[in-house]
């Protein structure tokens, strides 16, 4: 319970911190994202002539008549705040690894938003075409992606919960029945089998993770 409480407390604290940071620097982040998006737009002949941040939206101006677009980007800060809060609340991860994974995740998130915004600008159509359906389908991934990246880059996060603590295991004690044995793995196979009640049981798997074979 302590582990769960600490995680949730840290998650709340970090999300508040990143929220405040976003309020201070969010506009510049969106501006940087807009400049990144301009590169593929140029390549696809959109002829961008500038951009402007308008609250929660980026306004892309084009030299082509009637092609200037306003794109809401509220899911960008949502994704970044969620991912970074989860990344920093996860324990135990070494600082260097945490920073590396957090940076990688952040770059992937921004890359996703850059692709999404590019598609939105290029494929925009007022009619409900299949292209617009694709763009609308991608939008909520902005919420899902931070959670998925957290699971991928910090597997100790989600998969660290619900596991028996390392302190519950002793090297020479069978994790299934609690008998003291010299060769615990051999004992598990012999007495409990290789199935879900033996070697594949949650306790046996955790034992093998800690002490190997």
């Amino acid at each position, binding site marked *: *319970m302590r582990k769960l409480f600490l995680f949730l407390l840290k998650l709340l604290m970090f999300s508040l911190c990143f*929220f405040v940071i976003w309020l201070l620097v969010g506009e510049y982040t969106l501006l940087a994202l807009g400049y990144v998006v301009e590169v593929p737009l140029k390549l696809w002949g959109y002829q961008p002539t500038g951009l402007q941040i308008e609250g929660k939206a980026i306004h892309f101006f084009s030299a082509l008549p009637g092609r200037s677009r306003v794109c809401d980007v509220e899911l960008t*800060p949502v994704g970044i705040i*969620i991912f970074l809060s989860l990344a920093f609340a996860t324990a135990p991860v070494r600082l260097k690894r945490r920073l590396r994974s957090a940076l990688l995740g952040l770059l992937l998130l921004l890359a996703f938003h850059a692709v999404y915004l590019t598609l939105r600008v290029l494929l925009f159509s007022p009619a409900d075409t299949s292209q617009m359906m694709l763009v609308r*389908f991608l939008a909520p991934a902005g*919420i899902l992606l931070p959670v*998925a990246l957290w*699971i991928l880059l910090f597997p100790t996060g989600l998969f660290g919960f*619900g596991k028996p603590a390392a302190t519950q295991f002793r090297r020479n004690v069978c994790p299934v029945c609690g008998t003291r044995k010299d060769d615990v793995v051999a004992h598990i196979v012999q007495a409990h089998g290789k199935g879900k009640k033996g070697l594949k049981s949650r306790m046996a798997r955790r034992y093998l993770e800690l002490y190997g074979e």
Partner: protein
Amino acid sequence: MARDRKSKPPSRRRQVVKFLVIFFGLWAALWAVPYVLKTFPPGVRGLCPITASWLGGILSLLGFKVNVDGVFVSYGSNGLSIIAECTGYTALVLFFSVVVAYPSPVTKKLLGLAIGFPLILAFNLFRLVIMALVLQYKPQYFDFAHLYFWQVALIIFVVALVVFWIEKLVGREKTLPVSS
């Protein structure tokens, strides 16, 4: 001791990859439903007027004169229209996908869903009530609350719920007393 490949327990990486494949597959399939049907499924659309009536009920308890007309809730000098996204569909799909994909017994998955779904709906209702109050008393903060604050809060709530489910319901097995 030599053991055959089949008896090896699945590694964490394999577990995570399997989880992510099922998770993304389920989420994409469930999220794709509205786009294939070109509308939200009847169950989700049916949830809109129900959510609206719940919201109306709570607002009237708070002393507002409320009028609920289908999915539209008018109160004080304002009104809110409850669309499918306002019912917590994204959060429900996210929670469902994680719970089904996570390696755990079916009974615990069902128990998790039975507990999680009502809690998500309740949290979503709480979110709507707070947003209705923000719209009434501090309308300048409505966009901020709607698009930033509550989106983050809802997803963090779902993650917290998932972690609670794993830690407390999927849980750890009891430590056995040591015997010789």
